[in-house]
Each structure stands twice: as structure tokens, then as C-alpha cells.
């Protein structure tokens, strides 16, 4: 991304009036929820048992939970005007490790899970340190570490397969108090965000994203925050990897790659600005839900399932174009 991301030469003037109106009536902030409702209604009318059938919520929540975890971390990185592409590699390495050493090593399940999440945090902390201490842009740093961790995953587990420890699978299956564990997980993420969004941590991240130079001047601890951000993102990615490994009871060296586009799409659909400074993790999680409802819509429309890959990419393009136009217009008029 160029340093001067917004400038007078890029201005979609033709889009100004409708977007101004939209912002005034809070439409832009409500966007992800609108997408959600629209999709839910469409699916309901086309094939309602997709939403109301037995186990429907459980199946969907199970798929949403890992993406929600990664989107959480991705949102934090994007708050700082960064991005975390390494999540792909971290998820892959996590599933690979759990699938190869899970059953055979002498470590208890708890230690295994703690170890891989710790590894994710360390990997993330490295990303954050490099971003904070060098002039390198987050996307190039995380592109490089994505390749590195993807490579590690391949070395650990060259072919999809392996076997995770049996205890892992029972960890994620089933319900607690009648509610599927994955739904609890998503609810916990929302709860964490409700607490987190008012903390100094998030305020600092958004400050860094809006104007890093000014943030430094008012005393925001840049290095610490960036390291924390990417460390959390890495840890969350590893947690998602644990979930995926448990779900599939196996590992795969490319398990994480699909989450990169998906997590960025979830954040963008959720309305956070890709230039940083604004947004909400809750909206990103809603964005993740929206993204993962697309396959259902495709199924309900009786199209081949491959169309969902296209529509997810297409939705990202549409959402990010709307978001970018909104940003360039606002800055164009002077903040």
C-alpha cells in the first residue's frame, strides 16, 4: 500500500451524495447486519430448512467459529492500518503439529493445546516486532512469514492426514447446557469484544491506524501495541487451528490458506476501514457469518457449490469498493 493512500486525485465524486446520505442515516455502520438479514431472508424463503432444520445452527456455528477467531485478530491488525496474512501459515502449522504429534507424544491434551497457541502467539509477536521496528509494511512481513509457516507445516506434515489425539475431538463436539460449544465460543468472542472495545488497548490501536505520527506524539506505545496486536492475532489463529484440527480429526499443510481471504473479507464486510482507525470486532464476526451464509444461499438457489467461492470473492470486492469510496470521499472533503 502506498504511504499516501488518499489524495485529491482519487475521488469518486459521482458517489458522494448517496454515500453522504447513507452515512447520515447510519447505513454504513449497519451494513453487515443488513447483509445478514437480507441473506437470512433469502435463504429462508428459498429453502427454510437450511436455517431451521435440526442441527442447522450447530453446523453453521461450527464453521463460523474458527473464522470468527481469525477475523477477531485480523480486525485488530486492520485497526492499526496493517494486515495479517500469516494467519494462513499459523493455522496450517497448528493442524499439522496436532495431527502428527497429537496422538503419539506423551504430552497431555491441555499441554498440547497450550503449546500450539503459545507458538502462534510467538509467531505473531515476531511479526509485530518486525513491523514495529523496521519500516517494512505489515503485508510484506506477514506475506513472508505466511510462506515460512506454510513451509513449516509442509515439513511437519507433507500430506493431508495424520491423526489428532482423541481427546481433542471430544473437546469441540457436543453442547454445554443444550447450546452447541461453537455457539458458546462465538458468544464468548462477542463478550470479550464488549469489554475490550473500551480499553486503552483498542483506543491505542485505532489511534495508530488513524494517524501513527500523531499517536506517537501523544504517547501511544507503538512497539508494544503492534507486538501485542500481531501476537493476539497469531494466538487466535492458532486457536482456530486447534478447532479445525479437532473438527476434521486430521491436519493439512494448506489448511489455513482459505482463511486469509475469508478473514479479510469478514472484516471488510463488517465495515471496518481497511485504512485503519475505525471498526468493530462484533461487526467483523457478523461479516464472517454473512460470508459463510453464501454457500447456503448458493445451495438454496440450486447452483453448483463452486459458485460460493466466486460470490465470496465478489462480495469482498463490492464491500471494499463501497468502503474505500466512503473513505476517500470523507478525507477528500477534509477531516
Amino acid at each position: 500500500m502506498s504511504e499516501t493512500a488518499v489524495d485529491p486525485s482519487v475521488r469518486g465524486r459521482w458517489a458522494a451524495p448517496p454515500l453522504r446520505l447513507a452515512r447520515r442515516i447510519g447505513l454504513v455502520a449497519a451494513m453487515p447486519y443488513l447483509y445478514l438479514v437480507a441473506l437470512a431472508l433469502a435463504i429462508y424463503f428459498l429453502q427454510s430448512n437450511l436455517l431451521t432444520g435440526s442441527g442447522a445452527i450447530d453446523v453453521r456455528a461450527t464453521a463460523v467459529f474458527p473464522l470468527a477467531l481469525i477475523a477477531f485478530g485480523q480486525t485488530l491488525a486492520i485497526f492499526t492500518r496493517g494486515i495479517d496474512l500469516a494467519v494462513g501459515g499459523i493455522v496450517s502449522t497448528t493442524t499439522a503439529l496436532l495431527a502428527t504429534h497429537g496422538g503419539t507424544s506423551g504430552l497431555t491434551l491441555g499441554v498440547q493445546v497450550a503449546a500450539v497457541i503459545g507458538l502462534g502467539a510467538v509467531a505473531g509477536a515476531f511479526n509485530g516486532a518486525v513491523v514495529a521496528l523496521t519500516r517494512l509494511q505489515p503485508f510484506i512481513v506477514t506475506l513472508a512469514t505466511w510462506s515460512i509457516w506454510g513451509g513449516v507445516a509442509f515439513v511437519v506434515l507433507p500430506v493431508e492426514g495424520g491423526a489428532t489425539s482423541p481427546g481433542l475431538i471430544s473437546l469441540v463436539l457436543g453442547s454445554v447446557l443444550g447450546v452447541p460449544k461453537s455457539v458458546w465460543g462465538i458468544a464468548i468472542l462477542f463478550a470479550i469484544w464488549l469489554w475490550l472495545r473500551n480499553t486503552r488497548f483498542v483506543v491505542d490501536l485505532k489511534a495508530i491506524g488513524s494517524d501513527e505520527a500523531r499517536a506517537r506524539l501523544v504517547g501511544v506505545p507503538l512497539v508494544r501495541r503492534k507486538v501485542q496486536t500481531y501476537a493476539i492475532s497469531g494466538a487466535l489463529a492458532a486457536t482456530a487451528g486447534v478447532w479445525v484440527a479437532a473438527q476434521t480429526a486430521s491436519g493439512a499443510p494448506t489448511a489455513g490458506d482459505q482463511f486469509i481471504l475469508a478473514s479479510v473479507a469478514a472484516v471488510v464486510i463488517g465495515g471496518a476501514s481497511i485504512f485503519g482507525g475505525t471498526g468493530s470486532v462484533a461487526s467483523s464476526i457478523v461479516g464472517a457469518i454473512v460470508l459463510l451464509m453464501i454457500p447456503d444461499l448458493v445451495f438454496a438457489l440450486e447452483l453448483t457449490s463452486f459458485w460460493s467461492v466466486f460470490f465470496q470473492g465478489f462480495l469482498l470486492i463490492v464491500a471494499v469498493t463501497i468502503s474505500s469510496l466512503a473513505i476517500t470521499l470523507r478525507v477528500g472533503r477534509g477531516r
Partner: protein
Amino acid sequence: MNVLATRGVKVPHSLRRNPAILLSYATVAALFIAGTLYTSGFGSANNIRTLLLQASFIGVIGLGQTLCILTGGIDLSVPWTLTGAAVLTSILANGDASRLPEVLALVLVLAVGVGLVNGIGVAYAGVPPIIMTLGTNGALQGLLLVYTQGGISSFPPLALNRFVLDRSLGLQNQLWIWIGVVLLGIVLLSATTLGRRLYAIGTNRNAAYLAGINVKRVLVIPYVISAVGAAATGILLMGYTGQAFLTMGDPYLFASAAAVAVGGASILGGDGHYVGTVAGAMVLTLLSGLLLLFSLGTGYLSIAYGGVLLVAAFLASLKLSRR
């Protein structure tokens, strides 16, 4: 960097003034020597030709990627543009070489379309290139999966395979193509107004705009060239390997970006040259060859590539802070 000076300077950011490019060629030499020390067959004419052939694919894609990165962007839609072009050509031509001209024309037109989508999104709507091209990549993957229903059963015409590998004047046609691309790259970046404008935009977009450059229009061009280059690479690669397969584009996302970075270009834009990318492509290919000598496979290669990218980008960023 005095951007206003670009209007009067004859050869901006000239190769002589860029030590990073020299460093990348020194790395090529060092890696090559390391290979020959390990096993004498490494330095054989045959091996050199094979390595150059492998590097040429990264090289051709690298031109478009260089242009995008020079303007402060990047093209992450390269993998599926490449794969799409190859798969489409394979299916439409269906083994019949006489259909190739029309099929190739159609595929290249579609590639231009993809480039325009990327370029217009980045230039006119202000979408960050990473996200725009990431989205296009995903959309293309989806379209291709729908079109092929997940599998390909046709084979490319044999004539394509023969074209790529046949020798003219001692070198395979593919190498001549790469030489052509190198010349194109040098001329474009060092001797045309377009090249000067790309450097200006990459150095400081505001200043370029104020200097009278139609930034929006110019900024679309690197993405179109990148998409066409990726499509061409896909077709040539298919000719080289004799088949198209759905994962053929995956390695090139990273390889193209890494080649540009290793070649000394700054990821922030405004600094670098395709000549450096050529060296970068050779460095990556040599690394791959060396790792093979030690029987280290895909995983170690990915780790090595990631490390090389990190080091190269870091070194390039050091150069910037000294200005």
C-alpha cells in the same frame, strides 16, 4: 527524492545508481558458485539452460508485478489469472492447434479485462491493491471452479508444447520470449514517459498529480500488463509442462512478489527496476535448485523463500532511511 526533477531527468532511478540490483546479481553469482562447488554437474550448459527456463516463468510474470509494486501496489490475482488462462486455453482449444490463434486472442482479451477490473478498482475507487487483487483472485478461482466443475480432462495442443521448447538459434523459444520481455521492461521503465510517470506515482502520488500526471489513468496500466503477463505465463507454462492443472498458479503469487523484492525494489514503490526482478527470479530458481541438491522439498523451499523475502525487503528498507 526530487519528484519534480523527473520531468527533466533523462533516465530516472537509473541502474547505475541502484546498488541493490548489483547486490541481487552478486547473490545470483554466489548461489550459482555454491551449486557448482557442491556438484560439478550444476554448472553444465544443460543445467544452466534448465534453470534459466524455470526462472523465465517467474521472470515474465515478474514484469507486471514489478510495475505494480513500483507504483506502490501489488497484484495478488496473478495465481488464478495464470491458471485461468491455461485452463481456458486447454479446454477451448481441446487439443486442436488450429484453434489456438482465436483461443489465445480471447484469453488475452479476458486477461486485459481482469487487469482493468483490478486497475479501475485501485485507481478510481481507491481500493487498496492488496485487497482488490485478493478479491479478484478469489472471484477468478470461483469462476474457474464453476467452469471446470473442479476437474480438467482436456490436454493442450501438442503444438504449444513444441513451440515453447523448440530451439531457435540454440535457445529454447521460451528463453527468447523472456529476452524479449526483458528488453520490453528495460525500454518501458528507462526510456519511456510512461515509465517516468510510474516512478513518479510510486514515489509520491500527490506530487505526481500536482505535476500534471493523470494518476488515475496511468495507475490502471500496471495491473493490465500484470494480468496479461500472468495469462501469457500460464499459457507458456502449460506448453512447458504439457498440461494445465488447477493448482499451477499457486507458487507464483509469492514467487513474483519475492522476485521483485529480492531484485531490490522498494515495496513502498518508486524505487527499483525490472532488471533487478530478473536477478530476483534467478535467485529464487537457484535456491530451489540448491535445495533440491540437498533433497529438501517444498516445505523447506517455502521457508527459504519467506526468509529471503524478509531479508531482501529489510535491506531495501534500510536504503530508504538513508535518503
